[in-house]
């Protein structure tokens, strides 16, 4: 039973990550494979503040989000001029640099050994210690992230993002300060990724650099695309599908050593299949009313 809770918690976690990446990729056309890097910022900030400084989980998570927002803002400006393939490579670069920092700065991050003993979140004495309680928290946070993303998507702000996605020059010709929009959406998306990271730290109690590497980023991207670019509910559905489906593999008596790579083979194939047969994803983007 605990196992089912855990799977659902994971699905909620990836919902947060997918919904926030969708703001960048789906709505604005900024294909980033650095999302796990920002998740890491949130996770490590939370882990360090709760274990080393005894801070409250939620306070630490907010600090993590703030830090991610700051880094995102700094990163956004130079990468503004960069488009298409170059942008993806640049995001790749940032992802790699983040992991390098996490691995090679043991004084701060304990390097490859990671940080363990991260306490479960608690608020005013109420501890989210059990899986059912963690699930409630995870779903609540996923709901929050989804709500923020949805509000943005249906607003005039979102309409401008879609305009930028289709034709940046045309958007500028209508007086839109494209720079501001791109920086702002990037900051929000990355801050929410950090929220996901904080939740991850609180749930798993142990984090290390490989949990946030490029494969994670690609997986989150796959969820966004398969779920449906530009559709918030789609991202949540995508997370559910891509987390729950592989778990069903476990019932097929697959040896545990190949369970993980097999899961990845699955989503790799799904990504290819969707691009060929259903590029809009499971839930296609609906025009704002």
């Amino acid at each position, binding site marked *: 039973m605990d196992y089912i809770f855990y799977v659902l918690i994971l699905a909620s976690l990836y919902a947060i990550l997918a919904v926030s990446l969708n703001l960048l990729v789906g709505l604005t*056309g900024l*294909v980033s494979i650095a999302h796990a890097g920002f998740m890491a910022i949130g996770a490590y900030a939370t882990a360090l503040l709760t274990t080393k400084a005894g801070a409250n989980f939620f306070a630490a998570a907010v600090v993590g989000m703030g830090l991610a927002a700051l880094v995102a803002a700094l990163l956004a400006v*130079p*990468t503004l*001029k*960069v488009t*298409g*393939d*170059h942008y*993806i*490579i*640049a995001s*790749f*670069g*940032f992802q*790699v*640099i983040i992991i*390098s*920092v996490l*691995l*090679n700065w043991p004084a701060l991050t304990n390097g490859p050994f990671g940080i363990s003993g991260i306490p479960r979140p608690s608020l005013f004495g109420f501890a989210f210690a059990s899986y059912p309680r963690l699930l409630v928290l995870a779903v609540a946070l996923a709901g929050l992230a989804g709500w923020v993303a949805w509000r943005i998507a249906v607003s005039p702000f979102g309409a401008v993002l879609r305009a930028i996605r289709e034709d940046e020059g045309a958007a500028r010709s209508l007086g839109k300060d494209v720079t501001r929009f791109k920086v702002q959406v990037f900051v929000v998306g990355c801050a929410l990724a950090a929220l996901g990271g904080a939740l991850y730290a609180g749930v798993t109690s142990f984090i290390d650099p490989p949990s946030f590497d*490029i*494969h994670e980023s*690609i997986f989150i*991207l*796959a969820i966004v*695309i398969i779920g449906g670019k530009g559709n918030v509910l789609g991202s949540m559905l995508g997370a559910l599908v891509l987390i729950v489906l592989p778990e069903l593999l476990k019932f097929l008596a697959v040896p545990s*050593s*190949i369970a993980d*790579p*097999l899961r*990845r*083979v699955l*989503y*790799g*194939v*799904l*990504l*290819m299949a969707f*691009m*060929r047969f259903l*590029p809009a994803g499971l839930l296609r983007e609906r025009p704002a009313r």
Partner: protein
Amino acid sequence: MGELLQLTVNGLIAGSAYALLALGFWVVYGTTRTFHFAHGGVYTLGGYVFYHTLVALGAPFVVAVAATLLVTALLGMAIERFVYRPLRAIGASDMETLLSSLGLYVLIENLVIIVWKSDPRLVPVAEPLQQGLPFGPVWITGLQLVGLVASLGLWGGLALFLRRSRVGKAIRALAADPEMTEIVGINEDRIRLVVYAVGSLLAGCSVVLSAIDTGIAPSSGMSALLIATISVIVGGTNAVSGGVAGGFLIGVVENVGIWKIASEWKQAIAFGVLAAFILLRPTGLLGPRQAK
């Protein structure tokens, strides 16, 4: 001073390997403008075929190399024929093609893990090749020498092929102006198959040289792809020599860089160079002054 010289030489030799990687990637990217992420997968699979044939099956070196080149070329062509061409036929966007390529990379990397597990595999190399030989004030190992000669030779061979042969000229035409080539009667689909075969063959050569030096691991392809794409972007995507120049630059900067910065930051240094170029000179070393 001697140390700096040695590091620079190391850098140039590493650079020659990177240049070869860049060449393989550029042959596809520069001509078809497809961001062939799966190229990393071709590289990795090639490396494991080499390892398996040489070590697990105990075949002679030449046979292992031949098997590697055969598999990589065939895989590359199969990817073009069965993944990219159908996508083109339905009018898939660049992003959709890239995502497909990404999915394919994930597929290949994890199939490799399923078959060969995730620990790195080493390839035994003849002792004498690992010895350092003095060349004036610097030391170069036999292995490094082999790598350098092979890289330069392949670069020369590719340049000749592109310049002299009919197929090579058709490829350059495709790179310059895809619409014109169809009109002039060049079969674009067939040229693309050749492009993918050549690019993948180069990847096969790269991975063989790398495997005998540092072995092979499932993530090797990703690292190689990264270096290749950085080199191509830094060097400029317009000409063959772009990726080569970029590769040498990255090699030298990385190796000289670790004179003062700890070696774990090598990859970060490479990206630092990339960042500098993106900001200051986006068309690359050998690109036109101003982007069109």
